[in-house]
């Protein structure tokens, strides 16, 4: 019954491809979610990202003299 080998070979090929595609899309979704969470925590909630930029710019200014 050699056709069983043909069936198994083509099935194995698709199983391997689908498992990899599934693992790739899962990793992409998880990373995208992490990225969005981090971005929103930096920009939205406390305005940390913007205030950091201001702090760096302020730090690069020469010290004020009174």
């Amino acid at each position, binding site marked *: 019954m050699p056709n069983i080998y043909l069936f198994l070979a083509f099935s194995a*090929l698709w199983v*391997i491809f689908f498992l990899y595609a599934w693992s*790739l899309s899962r990793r992409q979704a998880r*990373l995208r979610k992490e990225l969005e969470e981090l971005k929103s925590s*930096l920009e939205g909630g406390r305005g940390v990202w913007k205030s950091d930029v201001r702090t760096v710019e302020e730090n690069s200014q020469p010290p004020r003299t009174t």
Partner: protein
Amino acid sequence: MGKTLPTVHLLVTLAWMILAFWMIFLYAPQELTMGEVQRIFYIHAPSGWVAGTAYCMVFLCSVVYLWNRSPLADDLAHAAGEVGFVFCSCLIVTGPLWAKPAWGIWWTWDARLTLTFVLWMLFVSYLMLRSYVSSPGRAATLAAVVGIIGFVDVPLDYMAIRWWRTQHPQPVIAGGEGSGLDPRMFLTFMVCVGAFHCLFSYLLLQRFRLAGARRELSALRRALAIRPSED
């Protein structure tokens, strides 16, 4: 543009794969001695070609990485290593499923099969090295060295059935006098090689984009870690 190109790439890949599978089962003639089971050839050999292409990419990107420390070359090498491992696994799995009905045995340690197994082990060790070395820079350097040294296996594997007597059949493509395929078989085979390379390029680009996103995330985390105190 951001999502259009990957979608078009995916659609082209799917269309090409459908055409390839239609040709395998409905266009290519049945082989006289092995019968239906010979159709495994159309997925087994292209998987091997793609695995070879993937390792060539690992080699080239590793050379570029060691030359100029480009993170993009490192990401591409890593992506090619991972997707190459997938295709090499297809090669390793479909081979014995063809060998059993054709030769009566699942596996033999002849030159071609042994060198293909070594190639698969090289992909495994390359990926394990990248996972287990904690420092990203050190992991990239060590992986690049493995990628370059391991490349020796690719031409040896390709030439094994030309240089030595093996259980594995002699080449039917570029095999010299006496070798060759029926024109319809040859066309089907080339369509399959194209379809597999198209699928490889799609998966490679997706994996490469994933590496880019991971790098962006690390940069954001570093920015968060070094931000000055608000107090």
